[in-house]
Structure formats: structure tokens, C-alpha cells
């Protein structure tokens, strides 16, 4: 089992709220629509897979996901 981390580019983020709906446990729920955290740890494979899904669906490409084994997936 391997984890990773994610980061949010605040310049690109427009607060679409998609990440908070798809992955509230990772990105948090805020009043603004912008994610609560600029970055965070992904403790297991399930979290990495979910973060990957969210990053792929983000309309502004603001989320990057990094795996502990070194494979980054920013687009």
C-alpha cells in the first residue's frame, strides 16, 4: 500500500466546488467553494485514487497529485 500527497494551485483555482463535492474528506468543506487546504497527505491507495479522480475532473486543472513512488500526475 502506498500513499502520496496533493497540492492546489491557488492561481488556477476558481472555487468551482467540485473537489469538495467529490472528495470532502480530502479537500474539506468551506463556505467559499475553494478547498480548505493548499496541500495534504494521501495516506493510502484509495485516497490517491480519489485525489486522482478529482484532479482529472477539476475544470481549471488546479490540483496536482504526487505518489510516494515519485509518479506525479499534474496535467
Amino acid at each position: 500500500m502506498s500513499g502520496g500527497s496533493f497540492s492546489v494551485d491557488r492561481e488556477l483555482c476558481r472555487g468551482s466546488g467540485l473537489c469538495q463535492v467529490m472528495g470532502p474528506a480530502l479537500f474539506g468543506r468551506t463556505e467559499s467553494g475553494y478547498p480548505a487546504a493548499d496541500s495534504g497527505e494521501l495516506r493510502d491507495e484509495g485516497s490517491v485514487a480519489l485525489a486522482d479522480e478529482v484532479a482529472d475532473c477539476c475544470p481549471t486543472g488546479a490540483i496536482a497529485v504526487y505518489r510516494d513512488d515519485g509518479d506525479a500526475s499534474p496535467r
Partner: protein
Amino acid sequence: MTTAQAHAPLFSPEYYRDPYATLGWLREHDPVHEFRFPVGDVRMWIVTRYEDVRHVLADPRFSSESGTWANEEFKAAGLTTGAGSILEKAITVVDPPAHTRLRRLAMSAFTPRRVAAWRDSVSRTVAATLEDCAARGTFDVMDDYAGVVSSGVMGEILGFEIDRHKELVEALAQAFPSDPALMDQVPVGFGRICDYAAQLVADKRRRPGADLTSVLVQAREDEDRLSEDELVAMVGAMILAGSDTIRAFVGNAVLALLDHPDQARLLASDPDLGAGAIEELLRYDGALSAGLFRVTTEEVEVAGTRLPAGSPVIAALLAANRDPARFADPDRLDIARPDNRHLGLGHGLHNCLGAALARMEGDLAVGGLFRRFPGLELALDRAEIGYIENWAMRRIVRLPVRTAAAV
């Protein structure tokens, strides 16, 4: 329901001329308003406060999949989007996990990098259309400018022939009527859009190009890819979501700036204000009056009102974007407005997939018009401006202007 209310009933001809009076009254006095939808006389609710609209759009108990969750009254009235066609399973009207899969595949063809690469093509289309308009002197922003730009860009990006646009606009009008008498035409409209999409997909399979349809034909996520029906539904959804919306938005934005000449001058003088101006114009008078129908999957309470399972709900984007509880002085156009997280492009799972393209195209088309014609003015009485009578889209019918260069 008091007799003192001074606003027009929802979805009446007066409402379409000025929805803000009605929506403002509802937001203040009846924020989760129960009413009967004119098509099919269906019992429905409309939410108008910013917080409640966002809640409805973000809460998974408000499903976009009305074909699955809506009550019988709603389905019997034929209000399920795309009912009976492959569009019933389109990205716009499905929930996760099906939605996640489709959205990932679609976004892989719609990356910010690819959108940036479309910029030159949009600029060329805008520049050529501006020259045509300059030659006319007086022209209709809707038909001669916004319509030409949006269909040209759409055609180039999806890879279809521009001369088919007028037929497409007709098909779109058939698919989303406001007149209850035209409901029998709805399946015809969706059928025509599916036919266009199917032809386009077949064409691009034979002769792939650099267009979005070709990219979608080849799109893959890991081992996954779109089936033929999904592919056609995806292209159909792009046509539905991406053509008339841009045209409507450019029209609303141009009128807003004509109504606020100081803001138009500010925008024309400083292109750096373009990005912020587009956000404000999306907030002030966006193209979508409401999101597509949401339907409750179980009994839900919204701001103290209990909705039974299967209830259709309209999230009024226009109303939310003018909520004084969220935006200071909301009826004022201020292209330098700070903290402008509007809902003009939606919110949550189904927020606009093409937002990056919409913003770029809007910026080039709206800013470009006022930079090219600094003296642009209305060529008809302000009171004569009318809107199509469609509950979901806010689009001006005709917006004649003159460039004032000849004077």
C-alpha cells in the same frame, strides 16, 4: 401568496423581460418557493438565495438524474432531459460513479493546455467577425456578432461545418421550449442533435483531425474509453452546452456594458481588466437562468422547507448571483469587484466543463468588441429589448447596435 406582490409570475412574458424583480422578491420573502411549472403543471420548488443554491448544487441528495429519481408527475410531463435518447445518459444528467468516469474522459480532451491552444483560432474568428460588423456599421450583436463567433468557434473546435449552425440552433430551440404547446417537438430536437453528433463522430473516425471530437474518439483513461453511444452523447452534450450559451452570454455582457458606459470605457482602456470583467459579467447577467433540474433522492429539508423524495428543484443562478447577503451592492456592475465567486458557471459536480474556453472566448469577444468600437451604441429603444421565453437560458432576441464611427 399575497395580493400585494408587485412582481410578475415566474416564467410569464413579463418575468422574461425582467426576472430580477420576481427573483429578488422570492429571495427575500419565499426563498424555497413552491409553484407549478408551466409545462405539465408540475409541482416544483425554486431556490433563490446564494447559500441555498450552492447547497442544492453541492448536495448529492439533489440528483441531476431526473430519469431515475423524479416523481411520476415530472416524468409524465416529459421534463426528463433527453428522455428516450442516448442523451438521457449524457454527462450533464448522470450521478457518480457514471459521472466521474465520463467527466474524467471528457476533461482529458479539455485540458487547460488545449484550451490555451484554441486561443489563436478564437482570436481569428473574432477579428474576422469584427471586420464584417465594421463594414455594416449597424449590426445585430446576437445574429451578426455573438452568433457568428460562437458557431464559428464551436464548429472549429468540434470539427463541423459552420453552415449547419442555423439548423442546429433550430434543433436546440426544439429541445428546450418554453411554450407548453411545443412539448411534442422536444424528442425531435434531441433526436436531431443526436444525429448531428453521430454523423460527426462517424466522420472523425474516418478522417481524424486536431478537433475535440477526434480527441474524444481517441480519449482513454487507463484501460477505459467511451462506448459509441457514450461518445455520441458526449459530443451531443458539448453541442447542447457550448453553442447558444456563449452567444447568450456575449449578448448579455454587451448590453450590460452599454448600460454602464463608464465600465465599458474602463474595460476598453485596460485589457488587464478583462479576466475580472468576465467574472463580473458572468455574475451580473449570465447565460443560464438556472441549472438543469435537480431532483431529491429522499426527503430533504432546505432552509426550513421540507421537500418529499422525487421533488423537482430549480436552482436559480441569476437570483443567487444578485443576493445582497453574498455580494455588496449586487445590482451594480463593477468589473473590478473583488472576491467574485459567482455561480454563473454553476457549482459542484456539474459545474461548467468548458469554463476555461467560455472565459477565454467571452473575454476575446466582449473586450474585442468595445476595443474595436469605443463609440458603440444601441440602435433601438432600450425598452424594446426582449428575451427568448426559455426557463433555463437567458438570451436576448435582437440587440441592434451602431458603431458610431460614421458620425
